[in-house]
């Protein structure tokens, strides 16, 4: 800004082609801030404001309700199963796609993205159609006394399906960028597959992997559509936190609903904060 053209006093400095006029820059910044505030910050603030509308006491009491506690436990349990499964599955898929050539590689890449493009309700419904009492495997499972849909296994399956792409999707571009040369070097030095993975690949991808796992976890805890279809909505048994929020809201227990929603938001925020801290450390 300071370098006005010498020798031509009084004449406005011609705008550089890479620079927009000041009003435009300000307007765009303002627009971004307002949109961000309205669509991200305000709803978040509203959740906590509603939860604390009658003070901290009622909000804390709502979280101590046995059904709410059961929902929290169930949500954490589902995430604790789904996230490790997706960690292993995602790494395996990304490793296969980025480091090897094989027939059907394209198909696999498309399949990994499938859960992103399918509506979560459909994701839940397919499990009802396969494992439900009227489904393909339903009678076979019933004879053996195994309940999948409307029970923990169904919730876990639906969550795994919906959150599968997160780990693989964060890893694939990075691993493709890094190429195969380091692995090939390791192989020529006599490393076996596990040693190669453990000492070469894993150190290269660990930050991306962590970030993928954290995103996967945030979504696993917050998923509503797919788990709503396979849950059965039994209080204290098959209600995850997002489902419990809906129930409380529909029972006019607004403070309780927003208290649980606030806790859910906090869990997500902690996850995202952990991600940000880890990215800094990198």
């Amino acid at each position, binding site marked *: 800004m300071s370098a006005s053209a010498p020798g031509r006093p009084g004449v406005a400095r011609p705008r550089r082609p890479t620079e927009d006029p000041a009003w435009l820059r300000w307007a765009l910044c303002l627009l971004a801030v307002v949109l961000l505030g309205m669509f991200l910050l305000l709803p978040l603030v509203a959740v906590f404001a509603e939860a604390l509308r009658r003070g901290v006491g009622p909000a804390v009491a709502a979280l101590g309700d*046995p059904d709410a506690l*059961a929902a929290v*436990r*169930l949500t954490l*349990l589902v995430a604790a199963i789904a996230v490790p499964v997706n960690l292993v599955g995602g790494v395996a898929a990304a490793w296969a796609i980025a480091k090897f050539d094989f027939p059907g590689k394209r198909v696999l890449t498309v399949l990994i993205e499938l859960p992103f493009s399918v509506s979560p309700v459909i994701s839940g419904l397919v499990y*009802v159609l396969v*494992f*439900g*009492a*009227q*489904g393909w495997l*339903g009678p076979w499972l*019933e004879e053996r*006394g*195994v*309940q*999948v*849909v*409307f*029970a*923990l*296994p169904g919730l876990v399956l639906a969550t795994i399906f919906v959150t599968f792409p997160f780990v693989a999707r964060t890893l694939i571009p990075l691993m493709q960028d890094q190429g195969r040369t380091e692995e090939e070097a390791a192989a020529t030095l006599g490393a076996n597959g596990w040693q190669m993975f453990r000492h070469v690949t894993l150190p290269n991808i660990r930050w991306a992997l962590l970030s993928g796992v954290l995103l996967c976890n945030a979504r696993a805890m917050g998923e509503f559509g797919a788990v709503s279809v396979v849950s*059965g*909505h*039994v*209080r*204290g*048994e*098959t209600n995850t936190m997002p489902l419990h929020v809906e*129930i409380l*809201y*529909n*029972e*006019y227990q607004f403070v309780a609903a927003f208290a649980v929603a606030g806790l859910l938001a906090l869990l997500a925020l902690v996850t995202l904060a952990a991600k940000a801290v880890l990215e800094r450390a990198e």
Partner: protein
Amino acid sequence: MSHPLARRALPGLSLALAAPGSARPAAAQASGPLLNVSYDPTREFYRAYNAAFVEHWRGKSREAVRVNTSHGGSGRQARAVIDGLAADVVTLALAYDIDEIAARGLIGRDWQKRLPENSAPYTSTILFLVRKGNPKAIRDWGDLVKPGVGVVTPNPKTSGGARWNYLAAWAWARRQAGGDAGAAEFLGRLLRNVPVLDTGARGSTTSFVQRAQGDVLLAWENEAHLAFAEFGEGGFEIVVPSLSILAEPPVAVVDRNVERRGTRAVAEAYLQHLYSAEAQALAARHHYRPRDRAALAAARATFPDLPLVTVDAEFGGWAEAQRAHFADGGSFDRLYQPGR
């Protein structure tokens, strides 16, 4: 981490996760919790009834039973039970939804004869809830089709309450117009005044009350009273139309599930106890019309007297009503055109 669901579904896993300090007392709990799959507006009533029944059962059998509930649109809940939701008892909005479960072999076909009063321990009817002062002057069914009146009612495909609403409107219009053709024309106009169809009665109530949609809510009598009580007398008024329908929400034990889980005795007791004086008074307190004469007399003031048609006399029973109006290609499909 005592998760009963995990215990039932994945014994090995829950053992691995079991931590000391499990909250629930391990009293003689024979068969795990009882599951009552119910429809939308019964949440408050069954919460109160479950507590009463647990006490009753403890006194009777020295067993501690726990009762879980699941609520949603009646049709959707029936579908979930058909798809394998392990309900011990179903307490739904109308007989047709239980018939659907029975048709899949989960419940004996004679279920409606097993308990008194067509297996409907309480009844209800359909009333209107309007905003304070009744600004659109809605007094009867005919006022619902006036231009500019927004009518909130759930989707009859998924909600039991919505089907009662629809049939009550049909019965009124048939008397006015003198035939089914006139009734169909009336329902077509009424549906054009419906801005959105929620999947269950409770969703419609929140749309009307919380999100300020529409001018009139077609509601279960108990749902109207509940909204009235929850949101203070300031905001709403209940309007009693000149004619409505006798809604008989029935209950049944799900034979296949209680056989498998060994819960028949407690499940049957759970439904029979609904007819006790204690439960009937409780039903009246939650604005369900009790069958018990004494309980009804005691609560007479809260239940307005109005002529009520029945599905059997007016529509030839639920199977026929379902076929004519709510099945694919029925009158609802012909008359409802969203976005017009």
